[in-house]
């Protein structure tokens, strides 16, 4: 590949991210490296599938009005995606640094963007605050659609938002409630009342399915 100065910036679980020069442009190379723990046939299938679907979903998301990095090249042979480098700050860091008001407005905005995705039949699949970047113009970019899916099923939307809530619980446990409430407020701006109600009920159902949840079968703690 005609790239120079590759710099490993994130050794993720699923892929390595490199900052590189590509035709005089600052780009992110997302390379899904083989996972030795999986059988190679299964590993290849998973990596190829995700490398194809991620750019497709990112493109769809952009059409839905959700900022995502522009895709420059999909190199299937190397299970690598070359995309725009978005300069900005991870929402994960921001949430604990900013004021309560700012935190709320960020979360409302995030909720709106999730709503836009869902309204257009896109499931992100890994909604965590590390997968959201705020750029200097105040736009929130969604990244990492590797676990995403194209579906309008209520179940998937429910799980998507449930994951958002779980991410808030594990990483932003000090303000999980206020953040998730704000996310739903933003979501409700885009999704109609009836659907929001159905999805909130779905989330409750998903939570009850989990292990050892107090709400399950109406049992008390």
């Amino acid at each position, binding site marked *: 590949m005609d790239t120079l100065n590759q710099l490993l910036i994130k*050794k*993720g*679980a*699923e892929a390595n991210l490199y900052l590189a020069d590509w035709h005089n442009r600052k780009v992110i190379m997302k390379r899904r490296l083989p*996972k*030795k*723990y*999986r*059988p190679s*046939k*299964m590993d290849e*299938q*998973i990596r190829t599938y995700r490398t194809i679907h991620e750019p497709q979903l990112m493109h769809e998301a952009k059409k839905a009005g959700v900022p995502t990095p522009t895709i420059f090249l999909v190199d299937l042979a190397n299970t690598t995606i070359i995309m725009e480098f978005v300069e900005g700050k991870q929402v994960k860091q921001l949430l604990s640094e900013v004021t309560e008001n700012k935190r709320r407005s960020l979360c409302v905005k995030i909720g709106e963007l999730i709503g836009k995705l869902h309204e257009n039949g896109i499931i992100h*699949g*890994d*909604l*965590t605050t*590390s997968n959201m970047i705020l750029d200097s113009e105040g736009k929130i970019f969604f990244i990492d659609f590797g*676990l995403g899916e194209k579906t309008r099923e209520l179940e998937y939307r429910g*799980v998507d938002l449930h*994951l958002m809530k*779980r*991410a808030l*619980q*594990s*990483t932003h*446990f000090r303000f999980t409630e206020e953040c998730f409430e704000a996310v739903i407020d933003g979501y409700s701006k885009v999704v109609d009342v009836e659907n929001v109600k159905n999805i909130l009920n779905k989330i409750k159902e*998903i939570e009850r*399915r*989990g*292990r*050892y*949840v*107090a709400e*399950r079968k109406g*049992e008390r*703690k």
Partner: protein
Amino acid sequence: MMEKKASDRYCLGIESTADDFSVGISTFKGEILANIINAYTPEEGGIHPREAARHHAEVASKVLEESFIKAGIKPNELAAISFAQGPGLGPCLRTGATIARALASYLKIPLVGVNHCVAHIEVGKLQTGAKDPITLYVSGGNTIVAAFDSGRYRVFGETLDIALGNCLDVFAREAGLRQKADMPFGAMVEKLALKGKMLIALPYTVKGMDTSFSGLLTATVNLLKKGKFKLEDLCFSLQETAFSMVTEVTERALAHTEKKEVLLTGGVAANKRLQSMIKGIAEEHGARFCTVPSQFAIDNGAMIAWTGILAYEQGMVTPIDKSFVKLRWRLEEVEIPWIR
């Protein structure tokens, strides 16, 4: 057995959250003096909570006696009694709790209610020397990826439906395998999988850091019933798929938290294939791989005794009138004041 010192203090822990009844005795310094485990093996089908509870009540006095003999101490030498207060099966939990309350009031020593999942992590740390690990806890009832942050163990990933061990157990039962006392279903599937060669495509479900096994189980059982594939190949493919899923989410949590240790525990931790997968990702991220010895990885009384000591030393005791069992007591609800 270790030599007894006059200064030694002891705690006895009772574990009875599911199919095992176990009593452990530990010194306050973390020397495990006894860890007697008595498993209930159903004739057929899964664990019936009432039947398991009846088993626990039947074997309790025998197990208690054995543990005192093994530890070489007398009941009146105990400083505290701890018990698994949850999460788990109601009738089983209540049997253990009743025995713990009786002992504590008879001996006039403090009672300490312990969270079963916390205990798995704590005894794992004690046995492996891990200080601040990402824990993958996989058993018949739990599939949890957790790590400590700001006073509690936070759950980063978990199953959205059934537990990994449950998935393997149900498949084994559907395949007509019979569980023996020294050969649990998981070990049978592992043995068969070793002879499997063909990888059959099965649903691979990872959602963020969570996993789901119910679809995988249904698909594998359906293929089994069609009779087109060898049982060995199905076991192999089921294991490869399910283990790859938990390994992927563990790696995600590891990359996210950047911890330097990975602790593998729970009944399924005994599986060599799973061990090698988790070891692989630990090495990849420069983290130390710690696997918990089997008798401390399965449900056991020693972990309850040890965690009881950690809690007791922080002044956490459970008055008898507040010692009701908590069937769905989540890991992240428990405050962990003994770390930092």
